[in-house]
C-alpha cells in the first residue's frame, strides 16, 4: 500500500470536499420524506414491534425513492450511484432513526453480493434486493462477537454442488426478518467463503435477541446441515468480505454523524429554551462551551465520514484505512454527543419519554457493531504498516 512510508493521507486531487447541487437536492427530498414518515412517535411505535419496520414505508422508500439500490449498478436493477450517495442516505436515516431493514439489506447484504458473487448470481440476486422486494442480511460474527474474519468458525462443507453450513451466527442485523442470508463461513477448514441461503431453508433456526437498541434488531441464527450456495466461483471470499465490512463501516459512520448532528440540534434548542437562575441555561458557559465542543466534535467526525465516502467512491487506494478512521471517529463522537445531550437535558434527559435515549441507544449499538473504535484504530495502524 502506498501508505507504508507516508502515513499522513495525501489528499487526492479527485476527492470532492463539497456535495454537488444534485446531491444536496437529493438530501433535502430525503429529509422531507423521513421527517414525514419517521417522526419519533413512529420510531417508538415500530421499535416496540417484533417486525421492527413498516412495510408500507419500506415500499415507498423502495418504489418512490429507489433507496435500497442507490449504489447498485443499473445492470442489476439499481440506481447506479455510489458510496457518496449511499453515505447521504445513511446520514439521513441516522438523523431520523428510521426503523427499516436498510443497513442489513441494502448495505451489508447487497454489498457482499456485489463484492463476492459471480455475474450470474448478481443478476439473479441483486434486482430484487435493489427493488426492496427481497430482504437480505449478512451474518459475520459468532457468539464471541469478534469482527475479525479470522475468528469465523462456522463450517461450510461441500455437498454435491452446494455446501452444508454448520454452526451459529449472532448479532445478525434484522436476521429475524430477512428472507435471504449471506453467511461468512470457513470452507474446508481453510478459507473464508461467502454463502447464500434462504432464511426459511431446512436447518436454519432464528431467534430475535433482546437488545438495548430496539430500533435496529439483531438475531442469533443456528445452522444445522443447512444447504447453501457458494457466492463467487472460489472458496476464497475473504477479500470480498473484508471489502464489504469496510464499505459498511463507511456507511455506518455516515449514519452515525447524521444521528450526532440531530442530537446536537436538540441539545442546542433545549439550552435556548430551558430557564434556571433567571436565565437560559445556554447562557451558562459550562453549557455553552460544552455545546461548542460538541459542534467541533460532530463537524470533525462528519469531515472524516464524508471523506471516507468520497475516497471509497473513487477507489482511492487509501480508502480502507480511511474507513477505519471514519468508523472510530464517528463512534466516539456519536456516543459522546449522546451522553452530553442527556446531560444538557438534566433529569428529563434520563426519562423514557424524552427521545434522546433512542439516539443514545443507536449510538451504543453502532459503536460496537463492526468492531469497537479500538479495533478500528488498531486496524488503521496495521493498514498503515506502523
Amino acid at each position, binding site marked *: 500500500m502506498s501508505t507504508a512510508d507516508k502515513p*499522513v493521507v495525501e*489528499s487526492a486531487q479527485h476527492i470532492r470536499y463539497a456535495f454537488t447541487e444534485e446531491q444536496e437536492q437529493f438530501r433535502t427530498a430525503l429529509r422531507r420524506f423521513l421527517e414525514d414518515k419517521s417522526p419519533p412517535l413512529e420510531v417508538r411505535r415500530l421499535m416496540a414491534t417484533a417486525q421492527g419496520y413498516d412495510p408500507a414505508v419500506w415500499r415507498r422508500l423502495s418504489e418512490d425513492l429507489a433507496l435500497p439500490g442507490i449504489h447498485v449498478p443499473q445492470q442489476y436493477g439499481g440506481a447506479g450511484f455510489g458510496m457518496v450517495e449511499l453515505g447521504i442516505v445513511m446520514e439521513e436515516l441516522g438523523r431520523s432513526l428510521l426503523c427499516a431493514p436498510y443497513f442489513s439489506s441494502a448495505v451489508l447484504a447487497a454489498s457482499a453480493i456485489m463484492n463476492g458473487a459471480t455475474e450470474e448470481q448478481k443478476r439473479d440476486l441483486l434486482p430484487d434486493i435493489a427493488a426492496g422486494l427481497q430482504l437480505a442480511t449478512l451474518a459475520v460474527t459468532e457468539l464471541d462477537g469478534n469482527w475479525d474474519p479470522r475468528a469465523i468458525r462456522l463450517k461450510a462443507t461441500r455437498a454435491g454442488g452446494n455446501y452444508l453450513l454448520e454452526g451459529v451466527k449472532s448479532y445478525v442485523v434484522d436476521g429475524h426478518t430477512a428472507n435471504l442470508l449471506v453467511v461468512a463461513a470457513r470452507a474446508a477448514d481453510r478459507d473464508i467463503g461467502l454463502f447464500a441461503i434462504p432464511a426459511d431453508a431446512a436447518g436454519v433456526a432464528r431467534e430475535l435477541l433482546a437488545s438495548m437498541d430496539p430500533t435496529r434488531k439483531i438475531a442469533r441464527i443456528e445452522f444445522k446441515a443447512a444447504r447453501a450456495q457458494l457466492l463467487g466461483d472460489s472458496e476464497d471470499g475473504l477479500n470480498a468480505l473484508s471489502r464489504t465490512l469496510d464499505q459498511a463501516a463507511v456507511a455506518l459512520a455516515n449514519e452515525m454523524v447524521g444521528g450526532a448532528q440531530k442530537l446536537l440540534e436538540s441539545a442546542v434548542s433545549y439550552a435556548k429554551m430551558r430557564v434556571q437562575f433567571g436565565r437560559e441555561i445556554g447562557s451558562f458557559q459550562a453549557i455553552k462551551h460544552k455545546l*461548542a465542543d460538541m459542534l467541533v466534535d460532530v463537524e470533525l467526525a462528519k469531515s*472524516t465520514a464524508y471523506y471516507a465516502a468520497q475516497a471509497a467512491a473513487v477507489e482511492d487506494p487509501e480508502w480502507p484505512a480511511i474507513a477505519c*478512521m471514519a468508523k472510530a471517529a464517528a463512534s466516539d463522537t456519536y456516543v459522546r454527543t449522546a451522553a452530553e445531550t442527556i446531560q444538557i437535558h438534566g433529569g428529563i434527559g434520563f426519562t423514557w419519554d424524552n427521545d434522546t435515549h433512542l439516539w443514545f441507544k443507536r449510538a451504543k449499538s453502532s459503536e460496537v457493531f463492526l468492531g469497537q473504535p479500538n479495533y478500528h*484504530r488498531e486496524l488503521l*495502524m496495521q493498514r498503515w504498516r506502523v
Partner: protein
Amino acid sequence: MSEISEDEVRREVRAWLAENWDPNLSLLAWRNKLADSGWGMPQWPRQWYGRGLPARMVRIVEEEFAAVGAIGCLRGGIGRLAAAVLLEHGTDYQKQKFLRRIITAEDTWCQLFSEPGSGSDLAGATTRADFDGKNWIINGQKVWTTSAHHAKWGTLLARTDWDAPKHEGLSYFILDMKQPGVDVQPLRQMNGHASFNQVFFNDAVVPPEHLVSTVNNGWQVAVTTLAYERRFAADIARPSRRGPREGRIYEEERAETATVMEPYKWYPQRAGRVDLIIERARETGANHDPVVRQEIARLMTLAQAAEWTARRARAAQSQGRPQGPEGSLGKLAASHVARGCARVHTMITGTAAMLTGADSPRNGVIAEILVSVPAVSIAGGTDEIQRNIIAERVLGLPKEPRFDTGPFRNIRRN
C-alpha cells in the same frame, strides 16, 4: 463565481514561472516581479498587486510554485494580516503606501492589540490616542507583541473617546515603530525564545493619514483583523515542503528566515508536529506498544479530520455557498491537535522527554514541541473565547450577561 477555470490558472502560472523564475535573482527583485505580475497574492484585486482570483485558486498557484521550487511571499506574519485589513478598510493612500512593501517583505509588521489589562477583552484597551491639532499622540503600553523588535509598522488599537461605551471609543492606526516615542522590550517565553515584546509609547506620533477607517470606528476594523487571524492561523502552522534549493535567492531566503522570520521559527513546533509522530514511533519502537498505537491512531484521525474540515470550509466558500459551522472551528481544532501531539510525542519519547538541547531527541525539536504547544490555545484568541464565538455566532446561544456597559470611564478594569 469566476469564469476562469483551475486548468487555465495552472497553465498561466506555469507559463509565467517558466518565463520568470530564476533562482539567481535577488529575493527583492523576485518579489518585485511577484508584485508586478500579481502572482504573489493571486487572490488580491488586480489594481492592488493581485490577480483577482477566487481564494480556492491560491492552492493551485502554490502548488505550481512548489513544483519548480519558486519562493512566494512570506506566508505568515502580521504583514499579511495588515494587508487583508487595509484591502478592506484602508484608503487608497494607505494601500499605495503599504501593500507593495508587504509583498516584497521590505517592511515587517506587528500587531499592537493586547495590553497588560486587556487581552481576551481587547475592547478594554487603555492605550490613548489624543489629537494635538496636527497628529495623533500615543501614550500607554502594549504587550505580547510578536515581532515588535523587527517591525517597521504596527497596527494599533487605541482609545480616542473615554466617555463613549467601550466598543465605540476605539480607533485603529498604523504606527511607525522606528521613532523615539516607541520603546520595545523583549519578553522571554517559557520555551526560551523571545518572539514577543512589551511596547511602551511615550508621546509617539501618528500622522492623521495613518488612521484606518474613521475615528472611534476602530473596533470594526479590529474585528476584521481577528477574523482574518483565525483564518490564517492554520496556514502558519503548515510546514512547507521544498524541492531543490540552490541559487542566490535561496541564500537570501535563508537569511530572511534567520532574521525576519526568527520569531516564528518555533511555530511549527507549537502546532505539534504531527508529521513527526509516526517516524518517531518507528524510531523509538513505541509503535509496538498497543496503547501508544491507539493514541497515535486517535491523533492522526483528529489531525486528518481537522485538515478535511478546513478543506470542506474552503470548498463551500468557493462554490459560493454560505460558510457552514465548519468554517469557524479551525482554530479550536488546531488546539486539540497540538495538545494531542504533545501528549503522544511524550508517550513515544518516554523518559528522554525530560531532555532538551543537542543531546535530546531530534536535536531538541521534541522538547521544543512540548514547551511550545501551550501557546496555541492562547495566541490569537484563547480556546475559551473561540468557544464563546462558536456558541454565540454559530449555535445562536444567548450572550453572556454584561457588566461593561455605559461610558468606558466608569467600567471596572485591571
